[in-house]
């Protein structure tokens, strides 16, 4: 090791790797998709952000090289990881993946039932209009 300032980056990288491992353990042990998405999105994002910031600091301190591409990668991961988790959870709920055994309440149930009915009604109305037009 050439300078003692690099220690900051190295420690951040080690912390990030440990958080990634913890999030993977949560991804194995938690009971269903919706609880697992907490482990897979939040703590995993924190782990990778710690690692990338540690890499950035390491290269800034050791070489004086400030990488714009790494900043872009950090921003992109920070923006897209929650979006991806949300999209997957919505797809799972629409696909009727069952909740875990000990789930207390399901607040989305009424909302999605209403929306499905509205969609069906809208489809029916569209079909009727088309039939009338063709007639």
């Amino acid at each position, binding site marked *: 090791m050439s300078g003692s300032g690099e220690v900051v980056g190295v420690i951040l990288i080690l912390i990030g790797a440990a958080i990634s*491992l913890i999030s993977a353990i949560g991804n194995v042990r938690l009971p269903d998709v919706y609880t697992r998405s907490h482990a897979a999105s939040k703590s995993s994002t924190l782990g990778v952000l710690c690692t*990338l910031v540690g890499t950035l600091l390491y290269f800034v301190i050791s070489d004086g090289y400030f990488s714009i591409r790494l900043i872009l990668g950090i921003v992109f991961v920070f923006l897209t990881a929650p979006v991806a988790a949300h999209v997957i959870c919505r797809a799972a709920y629409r696909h009727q993946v069952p909740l875990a055994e000990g789930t207390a309440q399901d607040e989305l149930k009424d909302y999605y039932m209403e929306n499905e009915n509205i969609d069906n009604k809208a489809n029916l109305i569209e079909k009727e209009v088309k039939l009338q037009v063709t007639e």
Partner: protein
Amino acid sequence: MILETIMIIALCLLMLAILANLYRVVKGPSSADRVQALDSIGINLIASIAVYSVLLHTHAFFDLILLIGILSFIGTVAFARFIERGVVIERKR
């Protein structure tokens, strides 16, 4: 020397994380579990590329971080749309 040891330890931790997510990919009861674990594997790959570039002391792999991030996000969104609606790209009639 100490730096290399710590980086190899971090790579081992990330490899264990990828293995745990791979278990979830194989075993996951629904397909949403598998997609979620694949997304998590992509994020862990990004972190391991960053650690590897520190280990080799090179700047050459930083493009790869951005590229794998974008590809992982697009793949996840496409899979989620496929699970939800049965098609990836909807055509307007």
